[in-house]
């Protein structure tokens, strides 16, 4: 089981929760499990086998887009963070 942290912009879809639990041995399985548990949240993050382009998914602090994408392994107890794409910069 992993803890999935929800950003403020998606908390309404998770009934106001700051984090939820989901399981899976990789990001694809985890997001599919998340979609089954919290469908409103899952559909905003993951649809048609792809991560929404304005959502970043991090496993243990590293963006899965620079790892193995949906095949990125998730360990028992990993923290998964969902964040909206935001302009940084200064």
């Amino acid at each position, binding site marked *: 089981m992993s803890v999935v942290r929800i950003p*403020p912009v998606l908390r309404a879809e998770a009934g106001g929760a700051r984090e939820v639990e989901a399981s899976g041995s990789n990001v694809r399985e985890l997001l599919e499990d998340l979609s089954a548990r919290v469908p409103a949240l899952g559909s905003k993050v993951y649809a048609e086998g792809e991560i929404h382009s304005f959502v970043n998914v991090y496993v243990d602090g*590293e*963006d899965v887009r*620079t790892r193995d994408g949906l095949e990125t392994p998730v360990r028992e107890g990993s923290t998964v963070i969902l964040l*909206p794409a935001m302009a*940084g*910069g*200064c």
Partner: protein
Amino acid sequence: MVAESLLGLIGNTPLVELPRISPPGRTIYAKLEGQNPTGSVKDRVALKMVENAELAPGQELLEPTSGNTGISLALVAKLKGLRLTCVMPANATPERKALLALYGATIVESPGELGSNGAVRMAQEIAAADGRYVMLFQYENEANPAAHYEGTGAEIARDLERVDAVVAGLGTGGTLMGVGRRLRESFPSVQVVAAEPLPGDPVMGLRSLDDGYVPPVLDVTQLDRKLLVSNAEAAAAARALLDREGIFAGVSSGAVVHVARRVAEELPEGSVVVSVLADGGWKYLSAEFWQGEEIDESVLWW
């Protein structure tokens, strides 16, 4: 060294070793971008963007910025006789707002809770409504990565014989794209690593996911790694930089050093990691984390 104006002193920043922060057997270098004329890496970007812009008589510059880019543009605009308006989130640090005003820019504040995205949106609306304004827009402007390809990256390649990884903060993506592309030419196996801020909840006030924004300058496929750094981790590393190496650097520089240390630990002995420190600590001096307090999550630090 003699320069015709401050514009001639932009770039060519020094690299310094961080022997008290580097893991045993690895060398981390810091590129001190705080030594640019206005104290940040953005001087490079501002100069290149203004030089590439084609302004008609009577036109003025407009830019959304949380501080550093605005201050850099204000210097360049002043020395080139141009007017500048900056759209800035209300929760940018007070030093950055004050400096921008002192350098002579006009400031328009955007809602703090909408962060940089809110500033971008407001600037786009202003530019669309009034043809007098030319928005340089560092998030889309190719002059931004080009300044780092021709400047920052070329300087690192010139100064070092080996680079295994380069770490920079992720904002617009300009530094990482430009430096990464240039360093890969000299060091084909170099890892290009982004340190990304984990924003505090108070600065994530997007109205919906559709307000999200991926800067066109940024091509994530060109990054080898992209690592989140919390404000607390960034502040702790900024303190360590000052305490151990005497380098007074900003919050994003702390994040970059935090990541550089992690990357260096994972690389084999003998490896060389370059960290690009975007600015000095001066513009964050009012922040209480320097005194050991918890960092304020409602402030836009990057």
